[in-house]
């Protein structure tokens, strides 16, 4: 999340809290609709239901703004509300409808990607598909950790679970991603640089 985004959230939230400001609510709605909808859609895979849930999440968020302690976390808080609603919906429905993927802009339309960029883009797409295939509870923690950059304790507080549980969900999510991507164990080593790693030694006999 960039600094501009944070300023927008804090100013807009202040306006909302001070008075029931419809314009401020609309600004937040427009700023956060896409990513909230995307998170819900990834859990439900149903456009209409995702729309209903996203709408409901905004209503609940606006009505419960006083529960939000840090305005800079509005996006993460909203996505927790939305994804929890989506999970509850799934539990009730106990079935998943597969639909077409959402329209999204991918790659470079003018075809000016270098080979390196094209490879990276394909890798990103593979990881993106694997993330979509995660179970909802693992998807939730991956999004909070890697998109919203929340600390483990912050995720735990938002999801009302223990930090140790967040830890194990994250670990399982990464393992699941590696499985989905059919990576070997060595490739699961997470680093910021993603540099080459040595092979893991075989088990001692």
């Amino acid at each position: 999340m960039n600094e501009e985004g944070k300023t927008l959230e804090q100013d807009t939230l202040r306006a909302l809290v001070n008075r029931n400001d419809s314009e401020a609510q609309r600004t937040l709605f427009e700023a956060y609709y896409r990513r909230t909808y995307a998170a819900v859609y990834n859990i439900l895979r149903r456009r209409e239901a995702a729309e209903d849930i996203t709408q409901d999440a905004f209503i609940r968020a606006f009505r419960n703004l006083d529960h939000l302690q840090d305005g800079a976390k509005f996006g993460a808080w909203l996505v927790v509300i939305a994804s929890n609603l989506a999970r509850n919906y799934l539990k009730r429905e106990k079935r998943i409808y597969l639909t077409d993927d959402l329209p999204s802009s991918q790659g470079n339309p003018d075809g000016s990607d270098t080979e390196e960029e094209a490879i990276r883009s394909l890798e990103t797409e593979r990881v993106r598909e694997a993330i979509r295939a995660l179970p909802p509870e693992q998807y939730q923690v991956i999004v909070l950790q890697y998109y919203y950059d929340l600390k483990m304790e912050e995720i735990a507080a938002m999801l009302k679970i223990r930090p140790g549980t967040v830890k194990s969900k994250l670990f399982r999510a990464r393992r699941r991603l590696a499985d989905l991507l059919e990576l070997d164990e060595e490739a699961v080593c997470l680093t910021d640089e993603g540099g080459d790693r040595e092979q893991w030694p075989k088990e001692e006999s």
Partner: protein
Amino acid sequence: MAERRKLKLTEDLIREALKVEFESIEIPPADRIWRRIESQLAKPGTSGRERTFFWSRAAAVAAVCLVVVAIGGLGIWWIMQPGMSVADSVVPAESEESVGIMEASDEDWQSFEAPENEIADDSTAVSPFGEPDPDPPFWPPELKPGLVLQEAIILTTAGEPYYKGAIYCRGDICLIWARSEEAGELIDRFIDHLGGHIVFPPCEREKANGMVQFTIDGRPALAWQEDGFNQVLVGISGSPSLEELIEIKEKEAR
């Protein structure tokens, strides 16, 4: 083309994938959705906990009602036929159940916080790396000058062996010293399980001088065996050096 390069699941790649996922979506916030939100918010005295109204569900319920009424009507007609008694007829159980879905169940609704079934919040869980150990073994109060014992913990993950450990800190540098509780576990397996407990997979393993050096989340770690029991020193914050871990191991962990 992409197959030529082996994919590495890096944190950057996950971040990039999520950024594309959330920021490239071409679903603009529709006016009609905003109007619905606005009208809901304008309603006075409504709590934030009512259920979402799904038109598709309402249509399904209406269809079920029609079927139930039709079946019920047919049943009554059947009973009223000459030669039939009430005792001869059985109301299908399915009909009763079907009527049941007309009733809104409070169990369906959970609060927007959606508390996890399996976990209750536990404010006593101080460390994200484990649970406080109620019955700790002896841990030296200080490993090196300034590197002071903070708390004894149990590193545990469901279904895996647990280890007892202690957190030592000096300023922002913290490390865990942990030991296996049972002898005989392969040291590589021990390191794998430890990675599970600490979330980050162990990387860059290198065996030298009876020790396994590796990294967890880019920080140095050191594992060794003593009398069949595995032990590990692993940095968890700040930047303890591998040399410092070796020095601690040589001095304290005999």
